[in-house]
């Protein structure tokens, strides 16, 4: 009942100013000068960090394995260019904290000499397991931002017998156009990658969802897929957050993923469109994932464009290439303006997850005064999840975190739609992130307390056991002595 009040295909969302025109008609720049040094973090994916297998001073070739994948959920990293390993050290990570993480530093030699991998003759006839193996070996991870190892997902799809591969080409974040450009310029490769993914998962069909503000990308993709009836390319309305994978799935299939479940529960696997391109490179050309296309834009950038960047290049070099005006620069953002994170400085490397870097000017981030909530419920209307942001924020403000959890805090995807529409400019997402952090540290504390209690209890038990054992031993000794004495006494008696 009352479900008529709920759009079954799309809920909430916003129309943000797109700012895509600055970059969406310019070709991908591939002439970024080769950096002198490359900084490759060993962790650029979800899961365990990769383990370095190269030594300092060793010469490596372009594409050569630098660190191998550890455990089931992990991904290897490769040398983006040929050169000498300078160091394996801690280096600031592309993260709001810019805290150092383990990073392999290469001094490039400018030769760009490739490591020779065998190229398969008939890549589209490889066994599914073989495809997954190659994708995993090439270090391909989800390039939409989640950076989940793609091979793991392909295997998951094969095991769960999924019926649809959903290719997410929503790219709903303002400013970002890297997926758009990739589709405009490399549609054939992307379609090849999708075919390989389908084969790798034994899946019968694929749907590519593209927002309808990318007309050229849509026609290129339609053209490239026309000989493959198993792949359908469809347009979806431009409305943020269409690129939220669960939203895209709901729009295209009408199905919803259970709150505690995964896409495979409804027979679907979702991959990003750029990942399809990386899969093609990995399987057909045996090229590991060593570069990516990223959008460089924002009010402080004089030459906004998409650039193909080697993994490990410092963001500052990419920004310099696009002529960032430092006096205009107000805020550096990794990713899009809706969900992207602030960077304290640009001397951090580009990683597999880097879809864009925005140098926003003061006009871009105009921030009016925060006013009291007038309960206009714009945030309720805008929330794609169906939460009550204003209520959650008021609970968090009163430090009632459990009440906020009851209202669905853990279902929040931090898409930022609520903060965006708020006429009082209340930083709602900030409240939710703060509360999630508090809950996490509380959980950690509880865990620690429990561990301490368990250890203390173990110790008490152990001490009691030791004491009991000692008593038992003493008793035994006493008994034995008593028995011996008795025996001796008896023998003496007999002797006497």
């Amino acid at each position, binding site marked *: 009942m009352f479900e008529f009040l709920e759009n079954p295909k799309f809920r909430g969302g916003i129309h943000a100013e797109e700012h895509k025109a600055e970059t969406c008609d310019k070709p991908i720049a591939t002439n970024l000068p080769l950096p002198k040094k490359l900084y490759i973090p060993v962790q650029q994916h979800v899961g365990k960090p990769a383990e370095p297998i190269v030594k300092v001073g060793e010469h490596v070739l372009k594409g050569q394995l630098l660190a191998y994948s550890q455990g089931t959920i992990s991904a290897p990293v490769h040398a983006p260019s040929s050169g000498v390993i300078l160091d394996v050290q801690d280096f600031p990570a592309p993260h709001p904290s810019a805290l150092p993480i383990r990073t392999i530093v290469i001094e490039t030699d400018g030769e760009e000499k490739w490591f020779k991998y065998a190229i398969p003759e008939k890549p589209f006839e490889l066994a599914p397991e073989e495809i997954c193996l190659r994708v995993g070996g090439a270090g391909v991870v989800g390039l939409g931002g989640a950076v989940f190892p793609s091979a793991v997902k392909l295997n998951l799809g094969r095991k769960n017998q999924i019926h649809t591969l959903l290719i997410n080409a929503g790219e709903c974040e303002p400013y970002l156009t890297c997926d758009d450009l990739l589709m405009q310029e490399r549609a054939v490769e992307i379609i090849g990658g999708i075919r390989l993914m389908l084969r790798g998962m034994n899946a019968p069909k694929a749907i590519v969802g593209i927002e309808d503000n990318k007309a050229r990308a849509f026609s290129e993709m339609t053209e490239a897929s026309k000989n493959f009836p198993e792949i359908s390319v469809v347009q979806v309305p431009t409305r943020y957050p269409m690129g939220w994978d669960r939203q895209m799935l709901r729009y295209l299939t009408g199905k919803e993923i259970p709150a505690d479940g995964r896409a495979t529960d409804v027979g679907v696997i979702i991959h990003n469109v750029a990942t399809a391109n990386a899969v093609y490179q990995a399987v057909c050309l045996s090229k590991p994932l060593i570069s990516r296309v990223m959008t460089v834009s924002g009010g402080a950038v004089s030459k906004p464009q998409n650039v193909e960047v080697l993994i490990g290049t410092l963001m500052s070099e990419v920004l310099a290439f696009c002529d960032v005006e430092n006096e205009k620069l107000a805020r550096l953002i990794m990713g899009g303006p809706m969900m992207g994170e602030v960077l304290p400085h640009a001397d951090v490397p580009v990683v597999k997850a880097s879809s864009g870097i925005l140098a926003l000017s003061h006009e871009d*981030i105009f921030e009016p005064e925060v006013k009291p909530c007038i309960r206009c419920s714009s945030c309720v209307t805008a929330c794609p999840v169906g939460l009550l942001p204003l209520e959650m924020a008021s609970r968090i403000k009163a430090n009632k975190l459990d009440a906020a959890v009851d209202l669905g805090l853990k279902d929040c995807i931090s898409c930022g739609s609520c903060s*965006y529409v708020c006429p009082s400019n209340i930083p709602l997402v900030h409240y939710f992130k703060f509360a999630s952090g508090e809950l996490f540290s509380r959980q950690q504390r509880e865990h620690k307390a429990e561990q301490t209690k368990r250890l203390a209890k173990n110790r008490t038990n152990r001490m009691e056991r030791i004491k009991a054992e000692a008593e038992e031993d003493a008793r035994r000794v006493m008994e034995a002595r008593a028995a011996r004495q008795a025996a001796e006494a008896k023998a003496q008696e007999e002797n006497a």
Partner: protein
Amino acid sequence: MNIKPISSPHVSSARRVDDIMKKVILALLPALGFGIFLFGWSALFLTMVTVLSALFFEAVCLKLKGSTIESYLRDGSVIVTGLLVAMTLPPYAPWWIGVVGSGLAIILGKHVYGGLGQNLFNPAMLARVALLISFPIEMTTWVNVSPFFTGLDILESFKITFSGVEISDAITGATTLGFVKTGFSQAQLLPDLLNDYSGFLAFIGWERGSLGETSTLLILLGGIWLMRQGIIQWFIPVSLLASVTFLSTLFNLIDSTHYLSAWVHLNSGALMLVAFFIATDYVTSPNTPLGQLIFGTGCGVLIFVIRSWGGYPEGTGFAVLLMNSVTPLIDHYIRPRIYGRTRDGKPIEGG
């Protein structure tokens, strides 16, 4: 560079509280302007007194609270409250009715709860009901239609508003709802009671009534414009008007001698103003579409019940306040369904 932790999103929509309030004021202006035209200078004086005193009380409260006065006064929400209070008053009401009304609305209706966004009851309706109970004579003296240049001149009007001059019975009368209610009590019946009633003039607003409530047409236009601007949503106005229409038509069909038709209900009293501008008040209405439908329907039902069987001819103020008081309850029980969950909050079944 800035290393203060800043959360996404890094952009925001251009719409601010000030813009919302400006649009609400704009939407009110046609009906208010018509009211001033209809009832002359006194209406204008009363409106000015009410709005200015609302601003004054707001400034005093903010000062006592220690908040910054300027930015709050500028956001326009006080002017909206002041205008709404003025529009629900009889046009010839004395100045102190406006001042007391504003005081009740701003101090008792808003600031005792903690200010903007914290109040349980709609401030304008709280003021209206408190005034009606406290000053029944002043609040039910309805002047005849007396447009600018045909009614009292500026000086006489000034005296009416500011010096408590007795208003002659010759220029006053009853509102439609009041007239009918009195008629029923004298065992008169419909449709005879409505012999002099013109449905068309009531729709235009050419009738006795509160300062800014008479013109159904202009309020409707303002309300529809607000909806198109995305300031208010349709759930409350439509459910409110639909429930009044449904109930009045039903009872009118059963007994047309004792129950007014839907048309009379819709074009009488504060119904339209309440449906589009009062019941839709963000602060005191529910957050969700379903909650708003329940709220609107509840208001509509109560308005009909009070008008038909209550002691007062008009029931909008009481109806809104009663529904305001259950808004927290509605918000507690009516929540949107969360993605991937049932309405009870459990994960949906897969497959």
